[in-house]
């Protein structure tokens, strides 16, 4: 039993390392995409890769290598962005497997709290909503800013409500034992 637990733990560590590596690759590529633009200090990795920062002339030779029909599109698809995208997809796939691994065999009793709890986690869009505010202000688009603000409100309702309700349910589950003992 103990041995089994150890193996589990190692598997976990492995998955986390893979995730971390994927994230690093994604971030690094992002930096490369953004760094050629001299006026844009690469402070944030948060912004969507601003295409104006990609010097089209210099990198257009690489377009061929990026392959796929996307190169035909109006916006140029550089090798760096291609790699960043691929890393993102890798992170996505690994995370799905992590998700499957974590949640198999949840007891029926916990299905509802698990659902509302994971639902609260999907409120992680709050990160995107907050980060996009700066872009909106920068571009001076007030409608976009309004939408971003609304997105923050909704994501926050999702987060606070989701975690709150989950906690309410879970504390009902656990309070029983004390009552029984008493």
């Amino acid at each position, binding site marked *: 039993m103990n041995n089994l637990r150890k193996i589990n733990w190692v598997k976990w560590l492995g998955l*986390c390392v893979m995730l971390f590596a994927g994230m690093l690759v994604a971030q690094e590529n*992002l*930096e490369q995409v953004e760094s050629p633009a001299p006026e844009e200090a690469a*402070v*944030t*990795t*948060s*912004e*969507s890769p601003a*295409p104006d920062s990609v010097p089209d002339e210099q990198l257009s030779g690489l377009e061929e290598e990026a392959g796929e029909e996307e190169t035909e*599109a*109006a916006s140029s*698809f550089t090798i760096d962005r291609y790699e960043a995208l691929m890393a*993102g997809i890798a992170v996505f*796939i690994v995370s*799905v*497997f*992590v*998700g499957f691994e*974590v*949640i198999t065999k*949840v007891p029926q009793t*916990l299905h509802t709290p698990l*659902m*509302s709890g994971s639902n*609260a*986690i*999907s*409120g992680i*869009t*709050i*990160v*995107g*909503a*907050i*980060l*996009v505010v700066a872009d*909106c202000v*920068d*571009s001076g688009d007030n409608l*976009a800013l309004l939408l971003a*603000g609304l*997105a*923050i*409100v909704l*994501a926050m*309702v*999702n*987060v*606070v*409500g*989701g*975690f*709150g*309700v989950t906690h309410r*349910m879970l504390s*009902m*589950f*656990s309070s*029983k034992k004390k009552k029984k003992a008493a």
Partner: protein
Amino acid sequence: MVELNTVIFDVLYLLAAILFIMGIKKMGHPRTAVMGNLLGVVGMLLAAGVSFLITLENEAIQNSLTLPIGTIVGAIFIGTLFGTVLATRVQMTEMPQLVAVFNGVGGLASVLVAAASLMATKDSSIPVEVVVAGGVSGLIGAVTFVGSGVAAGKLQELNFFKKQLPIPTLLRHVLNLAMLIGCGWCVVEMIDTSNVLLYLVICILGCALGYTLTTPIGGADMPVVIALLNSYSGLAAAATGFVVDQPVLIISGSLVGASGIILTSLMCKAMNRSLLSVLFGGGMAASYEQDEGIYATVKRTTAEDVAMMVDFADRVVFVPGYGMAVAQAQNAVSDLAAMIEERGATVEYAIHPVAGRMPGHMNVLLAEADVSYEQLRTLEEINPDFDEVDIAIVLGANDVVNPEARKEGTPVSGMPILNVDEARQVVVIKRSLSPGYAKIANPLFAADNTSMLFGDGKAAIQDISAALKEL
């Protein structure tokens, strides 16, 4: 060069993602679940805090910090207020609706983030991958939003949502497909023209799709739908992650997506239906001839008789169904169970995986009524034991205890059921003999060892308690 701050922020984001993973892992066991939820909260605070700091440091807006900061803080305040009110005020019996609403809200948030992100892109051409991710985010988010709204409306039993679409099934499929293709076209067009208005079209199509997909799905299939929408809201968040280029969104979103899919397939298995048949209708045998006189041998009983039976029993099993939730009878059941236990009998609860309107619905209600989760038995645990059960009290459940499921060629054939009919005595508390969702008669009601106690679930249970007190 990568700045130090960037690295720190990224590591913190990663930490948040790891906290989510650990949190969800811990949610898998009753003893660690509270801790798991709190880990999720910490992760979320961390992620939101880091995002806030990044915004503060953003050089592009250094001259005009008031507007963005004001927007963020104000919006967070309003959102927290609404979230807290909803989380604390809503009744436990309304939990399925609430979860659906939260799903929908999360989906809409993803739609708006992608919209704002696309609109705020300064140059004429938006990168291909951002357009595609934005389109996906908009579509899934909109489907989640409207779909959850419809689901919540159905669960709340609003009349508006009970209506079926006046469109034949086949035409509906064609229409759905057309809308999906329309979305694809919009994305392709948007890649070429970078016209953000096309995103609006995608969202509208997504909303319509959400409506046409969920409206035909019946109430008993709601556990599947809610679990699936939960998965969608995660996938929408992951797609948004591609739009704003944030791995933490991708990780968390796909975690939620995966968990939702697992719950969905569990629910489908428990109903013996494929996901496709739930989503697109059909799957159930259209007509099934049953013996007309099937209910000829139904026996009625009274609360006093049931109390007497219970008084002699050593092992009593309650089988709750959606009817218990409707009648809000969970506290009455818990009180009765306590009285029975005082008389020395053991009390258990047999819970079918799809009893109720959301995964684990009965468990939550019984937990609210102070029932220890150790008394809750799953289908696999209790089924081999039913022949040793003295009295099985079925409360507002129907299809999940229908022995027809063990026969071939019935609409419920093959569906795993609770073998209540094997118990020595069965008491079915129900308002009438009307069929359940599967629209077939239940031979259990007419079985030799079954007696029916007609009436409102809560009142009936309270009557039994009162009668038991007088014995």
